[in-house]
């Protein structure tokens, strides 16, 4: 943190000139600091001592102020900027305006405060060309999303590296007229030419705007997060994969995933993919989902052996037909709704790279066999979470024994565990703790 001693030494150097040879922050001590202070008060009369403190604070070198200001939250920095002209100048240094998060909330729809409109005006006026890492957090009101679009449209002088459009509640960007949104976004795409990270989930972005993105930023784009963008088609995202060879992290919905996309991401020109996140969401019961060929997944694994495949499933139980029939390189698996025993059995067989598994609900038949199978075949499994499921205590202990200490995260609701002849609820946590090598308890919910 802040090294006050080096600060004082620096000031002394400014004043004195000769001293200050060994002003290395590392070996300064409070004694040195004290010595500096007393020396100065000895040198001058009593009145000058306070003058020393007053004037030199104002004449602190800008790089020092910058260093200090970087530790301050915006509000404190703003207060500091009111102190004197020098500090006000420092407040406006470009380095302090590289990164900004616009919070756009309406009192009627959110409990949180918004970024002051005057501050927003100031930033656009004085600092828009300094901005590099920008995010917009909007609440559920359309006005907030529209305000975000307005700001975006004004960022003509920016070369942004990072842009995030984040809805903190209901996705209000979807309520903005599509053309208004697209034109605002296009301003940034065209002007930035150096976008590296883009987060546009739950927005009305479409294929043509993705083309604009690609046309201007294909060399720099590394991260693209666009789950739940209903106006994008598989062709649109394929265009991104084909042109942006540096893309390392991608998040999208299952309907955009295709064999061609996976092959494009595994082409020779393409860098190693680090992270692929896929949301599989059912709009209506009985929805049909296409399948991805095993060969496409194999190509991905060959090209990027360490990549994480994160899949979130929000399906009805009977919609899992197309999934887990072949080996799939999924590493992080989340079942947001009820998933059947049978599907979990298939997961055990076909997901050798599995690292994390979360099952929100299953049903009232014990998952003993399925868990044991997962412990046996998924040798990388290190985190598991079980919600409304049932597992007999013996099978659970067996599962933990098989996984051993690699289980760093074991989050089981208390109701999941069924006591049997071998273990009661009170005994099980000792057994499990023993095998895990740390104290463990199931998760509890208040019973009142």
């Amino acid at each position, binding site marked *: 943190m802040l090294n006050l001693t080096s600060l004082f030494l620096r000031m002394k150097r400014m004043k004195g000139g000769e001293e200050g040879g060994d002003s290395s922050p590392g070996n300064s001590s409070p004694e040195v600091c004290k010595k500096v202070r007393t020396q100065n008060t000895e040198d001058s009369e009593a009145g000058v001592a306070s003058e020393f403190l007053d004037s030199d604070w104002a004449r602190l070198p800008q790089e020092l102020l910058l260093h200090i200001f970087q530790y301050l939250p915006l509000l404190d920095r703003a207060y500091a900027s009111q102190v004197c002209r020098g500090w006000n100048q420092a407040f406006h240094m470009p380095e302090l305006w590289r990164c900004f998060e616009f919070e756009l909330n309406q009192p009627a729809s*959110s409990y949180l405060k918004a970024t002051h409109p005057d501050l927003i005006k100031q930033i656009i006026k004085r600092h828009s060309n300094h901005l590099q890492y920008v995010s917009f957090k909007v609440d559920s009101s359309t006005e907030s999303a529209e305000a975000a679009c307005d700001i975006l449209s004004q960022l003509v002088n920016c070369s942004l590296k990072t842009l995030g459009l984040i809805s*903190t509640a209901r996705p209000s960007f979807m309520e903005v007229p599509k053309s208004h949104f697209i034109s605002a976004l296009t301003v940034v795409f065209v002007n930035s030419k150096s976008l590296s990270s883009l987060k546009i*989930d739950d927005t009305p972005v479409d294929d043509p705007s993705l083309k604009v993105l690609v046309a201007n930023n294909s060399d720099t784009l590394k991260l693209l997060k666009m789950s*739940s963008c209903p106006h994008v088609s598989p062709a649109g995202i394929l265009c991104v994969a084909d042109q942006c060879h540096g893309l390392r992290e991608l998040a999208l919905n299952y309907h955009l995933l295709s064999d061609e996309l996976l092959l494009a991401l595994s082409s020779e020109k393409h860098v190693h993919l680090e992270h692929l996140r896929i949301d599989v969401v059912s709009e209506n019961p009985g929805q049909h989902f296409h399948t991805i060929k095993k060969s496409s997944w194999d190509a991905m694994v060959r090209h990027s052996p360490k990549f994480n495949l994160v899949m979130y499933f929000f399906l009805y139980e009977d919609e899992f037909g197309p999934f887990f029939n072949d080996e799939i390189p999924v590493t992080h698996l989340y079942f947001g*709704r009820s998933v059947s025993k049978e599907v979990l059995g298939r997961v055990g067989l076909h997901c050798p790279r599995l690292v994390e598994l979360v099952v*929100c609900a299953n049903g009232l038949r014990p998952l003993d066999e399925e868990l044991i199978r997962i412990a046996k075949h998924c040798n990388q499994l290190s985190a598991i979470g079980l919600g409304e499921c049932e597992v007999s205590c013996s099978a659970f202990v067996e599962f933990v024994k098989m996984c051993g200490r690699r289980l760093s995260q074991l989050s089981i609701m208390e109701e999941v565990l069924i006591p049997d002849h071998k273990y009661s609820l009170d005994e099980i946590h000792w057994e499990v703790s023993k095998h895990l090598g740390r104290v463990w308890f199931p998760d509890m*919910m208040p019973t009142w």
Partner: protein
Amino acid sequence: MVVNSVHWFRKGLRLHDNPALQEALNGADTVRCVYILDPWFAGAANVGINRWRFLLEALEDLDNSLKKLNSRLFVVRGQPTDVFPRLLKEWKVTRLTFEYDPEPYGKERDGAIMKMAQEFGVETIVRNSHTLYNLDRIIEMNNNSPPLTFKRFQTIVSRLELPRRPLPPITQQQMDKCRTKMADNHDQLYSIPSLEELGFRTEGLPPAIWQGGESEALDRLNKHLDKKVWVANLEHPRVNTCSLYASPTGLSPYLRFGCLSCRVLYYNLRELYMKLRKRCSPPLSLFGQLLWREFFYTAATNNPNFDRMDGNPICVQIPWDQNPEALAKWAEGRTGFPWIDAIMTQLRQEGWIHHLARHAVACFLTRGDLWVSWESGMRVFEELLLDADWSVNAGSWMWLSCSAFFQQFFHCYCPVGFGRRTDPSGDYIRRYIPILKDYPNRYIYEPWNAPESVQKAANCVVGVNYPKPMINHAEGSRLNIERMKQVYQQLSHYRGLSKSTNKTDLNMTNISTWTSQPCCLSVLLLLLWPYLAMQTLAVVLLMHKSNISVYCCL
């Protein structure tokens, strides 16, 4: 010296295990038992008709019990600060007794009254009997901060001595020694108000499912213990359809109002266990319900902001949506999800719902589907739920919305599936939402998916006779898990502010950020709220420390 005692009933509406009342009687010449109630306030308070009825019944019961001992209950209309100066003078009171109220509002009110009593030269005696333990002692044993995980709490409690043994009920002999002459106009001055007097309309009001009062409480206690013997199962019973309905042996509202002493329940359970199992001491899990209550009381006792998000040091600031329309639909049981609507209907009609039902509706309102603040849900429960006391209600809502107590937020209750698994027969739905009674089991939890022919045959068309579902659950829960992740990811990103000021880190992280790590909360407060007083910061840091030590005590 003449001793004229006044015992002030607030909670603790009972004559058994009432140490403060015993103190009132001890060596006194006269004793008057008062309850202070402000009918003008009744309308404004967030208290529904069932709760008022329960309270009035409890007061009625007290009055009857006191009549048998040749005394009466004095229900005084007004506010304590206005009422007491008058009474202390009129009755020449020398001793005031009441049960200790650990809630922050209660402590403040009592502080003012005790000061006033002192000015009148009245001795005040306060005794703890609403909680099993002395809560300050628990806090002290946890490095001067309340335990914020249940396991930690249990660990501390297991090191304490047993709770103080309950006292017997006051006896005729005790009362005879301090016989107080009742005024002829006692009933005019000090009677228990009726629901009408409090401003409620009672025509068409169905009879109470939960009868208020100490007599009913003790009766239920016996039945409760008998049932445990019969079931021969002293552990958590698996929930089934039957558990959803109001149980004739349920005790939670009686514990809340103090019609039943928590220590009486504790010792009865303990003795029953030791008799049946012939073992030395019962596990803590036997006292689940009582300990959860104690846990929340302990967490709340020193935190006047416990029931809100803003300014509450233990509560994560989550960007909940302000959506009065959605809140109203939820509160009134018009969400279009029969499981949710049936639960909220039972709550409004009867004043009690099973704890799993509470989890279902709380999750639906907050982090599961509607993304509305837990504070709104808490207020609805406060109005309708008989056993919702301030600490337990607020604490539970924070817990269920993953706003505090280091909860895992991955687990979301499905408003269709959870209901179906709990009650496959659908009878619970049919009972509380009669319009759906002719739906077949297959569709009763999701009537919007039933083909038109089925809907017509059941005489209930979705969108006409019964609302359409107000939200797409898959979409809603997907969005919300993202929101929760964002909140908790931000906490861990802010850990190194100096390093990240130059970069907004948008890198995706994996699923394991669905748990809130203990250090996150302290970091959150350190960096996002620099305006917090140092005092609160100290609480946070200590809390952090205490949770780490959970993992060190093997």
